[in-house]
């Protein structure tokens, strides 16, 4: 269990550099001085079935070829390519393996013929919630996932990630009601239990297959809140707290052996980097194709990979959308890497990225590197995910409150009343985890989850 932060000096908390860099794939280094693009892509509207399968493969081939060609044309020093499978490809791992292999082979080709450095992150889905309520540790969905992990080497993966969803059944309820207690139960109690189970399996499988266990994303939790806040369905300040509350959960993957880069859509990445020292992938304005956000620049401040999250293979005026993303990411990385040729200049760039967003939205504010370090510190002083979530929420809300007083952050008037509501809810969280669990179990008796899947 971590006792101190891996990064203790704010000056050393910056983009492109992390205390524990990674070498992977075809000559790629992550977190060792340069930010590299992480490019993601997906299918346009199409049904996935045996009949459409050849077309699916054609599309993946078209996408990865366009991407590699553009990366070569721009003289990229290296790219990270992610394939996040679609559910049918995980339920039927042979499909997933086939698509992945196709991509890996192309990367080999471009490495040999055109000297393009690359690494390949494979992200199988968490399909366990295809059953409702989900079964987390058995059944056909879990079997499919396990098979896929086991075949990740065959699939050509250099890194494995997942956006796991254990605890989301309760988190969804928490979001709809902006209910802090349910949120803490989801992210502080049951999600970490599932993460421990899941990541032990993944790390073991990675060892057998010589693949790097990279990290997990609280996407189904905190990004859902972010997207809802962006649609004005939830208060932004609540979404900011959900982000903080997701940190202890995502950290579990690293405690089990993940080494990064964390997933692009894990906007909790800066916390992970501060705590563990592992490199992180992040996304922001370049991911506007996938979701709008209020952290377009600040999300870049301490990234090691810079991503577009995901874009469909649609035709734009210049070419296909994945190729367009590739170009944008490469230019963004070029700029960051030129700026960081001296540490002082790199920090200047980082601070501009931070300053350009941090006062507009509490979700941006809690990604400020100094704020991240302070909140992370209070969190890891605690020993269990529950206490860490509680400490993080307390500290986070206090940070937001004092930023507002100091005019460093503006909050829409409609959200002001939420400050007190949230404070009261956080304040009433008991010290004792068992007490909290006993308080919550009856309240969640009717919720669509199976307590025994989480060891209750």
């Amino acid at each position, binding site marked *: 269990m971590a006792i101190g932060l891996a990064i203790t000096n704010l000056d050393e908390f910056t983009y492109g550099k992390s205390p524990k860099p990674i070498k992977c794939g075809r000559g790629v280094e992550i977190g060792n001085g340069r930010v590299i693009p992480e490019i993601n892509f997906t299918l*346009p*509207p199409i*049904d996935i079935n045996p009949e459409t399968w050849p077309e699916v493969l054609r599309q993946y081939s078209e996408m990865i070829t366009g991407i590699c060609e553009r990366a070569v044309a721009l003289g990229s020093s290296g790219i990270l390519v992610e394939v996040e499978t*679609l559910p049918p490809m995980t339920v039927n791992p042979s499909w997933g393996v086939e698509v992945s292999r196709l991509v890996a082979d192309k990367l080999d080709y471009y490495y040999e013929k055109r000297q393009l450095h690359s690494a390949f992150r494979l992200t199988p889905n968490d399909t366990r919630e*295809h059953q*409702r309520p989900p079964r987390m540790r058995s059944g056909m969905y879990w079997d499919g996932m396990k098979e896929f992990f086991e075949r990740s080497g065959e699939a050509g993966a250099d890194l494995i990630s997942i956006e796991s969803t254990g605890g989301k059944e309760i988190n*969804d309820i928490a979001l*709809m009601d902006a209910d802090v207690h349910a949120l803490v139960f989801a992210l502080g109690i049951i999600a970490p239990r599932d993460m421990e189970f899941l990541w032990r399996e993944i790390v073991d499988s990675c060892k057998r297959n010589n693949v790097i266990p990279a990290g997990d994303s609280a996407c189904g939790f905190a990004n859902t809140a972010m997207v*809802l806040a962006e649609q004005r*369905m939830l208060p932004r300040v609540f979404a900011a707290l959900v982000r903080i509350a997701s940190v202890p959960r995502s950290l579990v993957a690293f405690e089990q052996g993940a080494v990064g880069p964390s997933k692009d859509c894990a906007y909790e990445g800066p916390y992970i980097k501060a705590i563990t020292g592992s490199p992180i992938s992040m996304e922001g304005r370049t991911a506007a194709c996938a979701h709008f956000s209020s952290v377009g620049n600040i999300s870049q401040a301490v990234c090691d990979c810079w991503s577009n999250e995901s874009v469909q293979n649609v035709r734009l005026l210049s070419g296909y959308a994945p190729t367009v993303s590739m170009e944008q990411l490469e230019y963004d990385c070029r700029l960051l890497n030129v700026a960081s040729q001296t540490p002082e200049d790199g920090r200047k760039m980082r601070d501009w990225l931070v300053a350009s967003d941090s006062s507009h939205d509490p979700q941006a504010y809690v990604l400020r590197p100094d704020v991240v370090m302070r909140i992370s510190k209070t969190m890891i002083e605690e020993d269990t995910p529950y206490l860490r979530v509680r400490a993080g929420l307390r500290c986070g809300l206090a940070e937001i409150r004092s930023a507002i007083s100091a005019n460093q952050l503006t909050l829409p008037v409609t959200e002001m009343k939420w400050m007190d509501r949230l404070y009261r809810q956080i304040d009433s969280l008991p010290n004792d985890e068992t007490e909290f669990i006993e308080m919550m179990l009856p309240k969640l008796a009717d919720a669509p989850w199976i307590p025994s899947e989480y060891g209750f």
Partner: protein
Amino acid sequence: MTDLQPLYEAILEGDAATAKATVQEALIESIDPQELLDKFMIPAMDEVGRRFETNEYFVPELLISARAMKGALELIRPKLADKGAKPIAKVVIGTVKGDLHDIGKNLVAAMLEGGGFEVIDLKVDVSPEQFVQTAKEQGAQIIAMSALLTTTMPGMKATVDAVNNAGLHDKVKIMIGGAPVTQRYADEIGADGFSENASAAVRLARQLVGAE
């Protein structure tokens, strides 16, 4: 006589206890339940809707008010003349086959209920057959489908086709939604309506059954 303004306030604030207590007192004093509904409860929900549309209220506030409304409604419904209490129409709703994104669908369902519809929620991962069968059995006037994945969108077309094949499309209107769905797609597959968000979904449903 009981002051009824607190009923309005209680629904607006989502205070179910006060809402129910006020209704009970009023009923003891034999105040016309129709008046409670028309003068206080419905105006309160209208105001909730307005605040939500103008971004003064967020979803949690909307849901909590809807629950207060529901609680109060349950108390007066038995006492109401039949006419006022009938739902506008029955809606069968769900996410399409393979799609587990249900937050949007849940919001649409909640808003439809708040808007006076009876909602039969088939939850997630619903096959065309399930939609058709339930709509038939329940005599629903609307089938509402949600999809968030471009790879599950074809399930919408499959359902429209199934409705057509079952000879049901003259009795049931089909509405669709979800982030990747567009009006163009709705037209293409022969759905009767599409809307961008949950509030617009209620207006759309009203239009489809000729209630607006």
